[in-house]
């Protein structure tokens, strides 16, 4: 872990969001197995440090354009466990009021561009957010997340190029989790690092240990401060591993077991917890207290979601267009 001058409160905040992310997703998996979730389930287990580390490096009025594995970042931007679970249960109280499902939600007021399925589509959109900041002389940045698979799409290229040419305050952050659905990295690209792709745009590209939350945080913080100073965009790649199937229906039998074993040892939350303990920032009782708090929050969220009303079919056609 790179030593960083972070106050214990900040470190504990990171710890809290890592644990909240993991806890919420584990709960969703359990609900899924019980048939209580509507639709598929996308989990970020093992790669929470990228979402949380990145979001922890941002200012409150910065914006994120998340992927389907960025629950941690969404939570840090203010999405509540209740909203998240109500979304997974397709309730009226969910973030899209049942119009869209699972990880497809956002709220621009809280600085979150709603994720959509077509991979990499949010990268041009994030570029436009950066453009708005630049035109209005705001010292804000936007963090745009994407997967290794998404980096093969044309929209990735067009967005990074546009951001670089216009020197926009965008941080492109890659979850390199070794797979895109069943497709391993070597069938996705012929370069070693996704960060190598930055060279095509004349922007800095760095590769960090994506399972080291403070390493992610510091790389993103650096990129953010450059962006804020008018230095233009950067690409930050976090190497990590997708520890579950693409979605919960997928047993991921195409992933070698040894690979998972190897990565399990590098679990980002375990590592960070160990670090906090060695730094004497966390002890058993503090950990227990946080754990209890999280359990309560999560269970409250489950009850909230389950007792929330379903959408009303009479609203079906409401809001197809915005009214003036």
């Amino acid at each position: 872990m790179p030593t960083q001058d972070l106050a214990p409160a900040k470190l504990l905040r990171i710890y809290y969001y890592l644990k909240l992310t993991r806890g919420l997703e584990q709960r969703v998996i359990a609900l899924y197995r019980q048939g209580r979730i509507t639709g598929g389930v996308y989990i970020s287990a093992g790669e929470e440090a990228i979402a949380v580390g990145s979001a922890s490096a941002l200012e409150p009025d910065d914006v994120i354009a998340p992927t389907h594995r960025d629950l941690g970042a969404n939570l840090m931007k203010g999405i509540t466990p209740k909203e998240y679970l109500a979304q997974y249960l397709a309730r009226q109280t969910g973030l899209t009021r049942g119009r869209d499902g699972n990880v497809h939600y956002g709220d621009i007021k809280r600085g979150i561009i709603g994720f959509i399925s077509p991979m990499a589509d949010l990268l041009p959109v994030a570029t436009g957010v950066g453009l708005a900041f630049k035109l209005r002389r705001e010292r804000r940045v936007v963090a745009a997340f994407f997967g290794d698979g998404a980096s093969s799409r044309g929209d990735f290229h067009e967005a990074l190029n546009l951001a670089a040419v216009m020197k926009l305050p965008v941080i492109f952050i890659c979850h390199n989790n070794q797979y895109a659905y069943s497709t391993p990295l070597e069938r996705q690209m012929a370069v070693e690092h996704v960060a190598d792709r930055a060279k095509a745009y004349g922007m800095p590209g760095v590769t960090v240990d994506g399972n080291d939350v403070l390493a992610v945080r510091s790389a993103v913080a650096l990129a953010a401060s450059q962006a804020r100073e008018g230095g233009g965009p950067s690409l930050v790649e976090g190497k990590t591993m997708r520890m579950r199937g693409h979605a919960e229906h997928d047993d991921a039998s195409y992933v070698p077991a040894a690979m998972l074993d190897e990565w399990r040892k590098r679990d980002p939350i375990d590592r960070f917890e160990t670090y906090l303990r060695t730094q004497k920032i966390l002890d058993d009782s503090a950990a227990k207290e946080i754990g209890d708090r999280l359990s309560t929050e999560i269970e409250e969220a489950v009850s909230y979601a389950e007792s929330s009303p379903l959408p009303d079919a009479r609203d079906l056609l409401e809001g197809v267009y915005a009214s003036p």
Partner: protein
Amino acid sequence: MEITYLEAIRQALWEEMDRDERVFMLGEDIGVYGGAFKITKGFYEKFGPERVIDTPLSESAFVGAAIGAALMGMRPIVEMQFADFIACAFDQIVNMAAKHHYRIGEPVPLVIRAPYGGGIGAGPYHSQCPEAWFFHVAGLKLVAPSTPRDAKGLLKASIRDPNPVIYFEHKYLYRHVKGEVPDGDHLVPIGKAEIKRQGSTVSVITYGAMVHHSLKAAEQLMPEGIDLEVVDLRTLQPMDFETIMASVEKTGRAMVVHEAPKTGGIGGEIAARLAEEAFRCLDAPIFRVASPHSPVPFSPVLEEAYLPNADKIALKARELARF
């Protein structure tokens, strides 16, 4: 023996890969994984990585590559993981594939398999029916079977066709529909509709999953003395207007049913042609039953309200019969 719609597609692919060396497949996760819907399960093992190609996540590139291979005499089959992502390859399809033969005179034998449609609780990005986007584009053929028999026969015909064919396979039907499929080299010609149910009161012109809902509506209406004729288009482009006309001439009443939104859907074209060409034999207005003008909602409550179904079809058919 009855097989599923999914198995029918699988068989068609298998037989064509086996029959013709030039046939190969490309798409995301179709190899070792066997595809998001497991349609190509076992193909990688049988035909090898050169003919069952896992591509990077880049729809425009692999559709473009299929066009290039087709120009060189190959017979590529592209799998879209979901039809919704065909939007990412739109330019290659409409600007390159569709126009090439008209401009240059060279065939582009290419099949794009597009798993489409809702009713599976999958929301705005995994449920769309995008066939109308392509219906307006000259040079493309569009196929949308409703039964295992047609699914198999039309896919084989599509693979042998010298034109770019978009093959719309309905995700809801994959495992929900079973049926007999003739043995041997079973082909269904592109461009021929089929009367799936003979009837005398109202012609229901439809395709895809809505064929089954229409047939169900017909059963509901029988006791009321309303006898629906269900015309399954099977091919959307070129459309078998003769069969439609013959049916409407017989019944004097027509309704079009599709799952895609009504506004700008293919039903508009059919109704418009009938309003022009069958004016003299129409005893009633032409009705359309289709989804409303909105994205496909995720929540089952909303999706249920959104999608046409047997009840909604029966309701309109009753109204039409009484007109």
